[in-house]
């Protein structure tokens, strides 16, 4: 499911190129963010045959993609080089994730990685008043943006960012609307590189809890 305010226009080309054999859907209103508590991508949720969530959203890289291996080239501008340096520090755990996923696919409820309902709820993202208020601002911002009120939308997006700074989905979606490279703009206090450096690239994704 593509979380993309740009809808089919933004996500469709990627889906077409992937030629998926599975359903490939587009969530232009970021409903998954609110319904499941997704705060970054890629995030995976496991749902069993009865429609019960057995693992809440967690970082779900199926493999180490090329972006993590790309070397810094002499021709790279300084900001690109700085960005790549941070990307190299990001921790992803595709081997661990795929091992667990395959174990669940084979063993179902007997898999040690399938969680009980109480654990699923407990491991889902916190949503106190600030995160819930951020969700309201983000929804309002999206609505305003779709209507062409980009400045008013940015006010709402900034409020969402301030209230839930760990929500990279809110930040990256909004930044990308102002600049596809998510570089500094006058609309937002943050940008991808600065924010990642602030929290530490190694903390960009939380460690998988597969033990």
């Amino acid at each position, binding site marked *: *499911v593509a*979380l*993309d305010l740009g809808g089919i226009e933004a*996500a469709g*080309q*990627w889906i*077409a190129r992937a030629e998926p054999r599975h*359903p*490939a*859907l*587009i*969530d232009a209103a970021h*409903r998954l963010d*609110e*319904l*499941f*508590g*997704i705060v970054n*991508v890629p*995030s*995976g949720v*496991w*749902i*069993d*045959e009865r*429609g*019960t*969530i057995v693992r*809440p*959203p967690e970082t779900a890289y199926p493999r180490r993609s090329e972006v993590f291996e790309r070397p810094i080239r002499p021709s790279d501008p300084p900001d690109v080089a700085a960005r790549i340096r941070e990307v190299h520090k990001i921790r992803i755990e595709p081997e661990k994730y795929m091992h667990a996923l395959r174990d*669940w*696919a084979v063993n179902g409820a007997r898999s040690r990685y399938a969680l009980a*309902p109480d654990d*699923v*709820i407990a491991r*889902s*993202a*916190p*949503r*106190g*008043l600030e*995160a*819930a*208020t*951020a*969700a*309201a*601002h983000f*929804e*309002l911002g999206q*609505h*305003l943006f779709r209507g062409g*009120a980009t400045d*008013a939308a940015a006010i*709402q997006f900034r*409020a969402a960012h301030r209230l839930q700074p760990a929500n990279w*989905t809110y930040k*990256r*979606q909004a930044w990308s609307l102002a600049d596809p490279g*998510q570089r500094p703009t006058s609309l937002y206090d943050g940008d991808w590189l600065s924010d990642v450096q602030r929290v530490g690239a190694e903390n960009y994704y939380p460690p998988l809890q597969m033990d």
Partner: protein
Amino acid sequence: VILDRLHVETAQVERGTGWAIKPEGACRDERCVPLPAAATADGQVDVRVIAQQLGMPLVHDASSGLWALGPEASTRSLSSARAPDLVLPDMLGQLFDLATLRGTKVLLLAWASW
């Protein structure tokens, strides 16, 4: 839930929040939260009361006059392990209902182009 006023049709609140407005209050699954009598009248509901009683933030954009009613503030994003209802379009605009995958294991993977 986007709103252009604070007194809206009960059905609109029910569709947007998943809470049913009943004589005993706002109800979802087995839980009912009592509402003051003044909260509902003539098939309409005062969203400010709903927001307060259910712990839902209500935010406003003065330039458009619009409001957004957020999700309930609780401890966790998931209040149940039951997968929520979800119907979304594919790249051809065809709607797909997650519930049609009952009977198979599902990996729901969220990604983005940005």
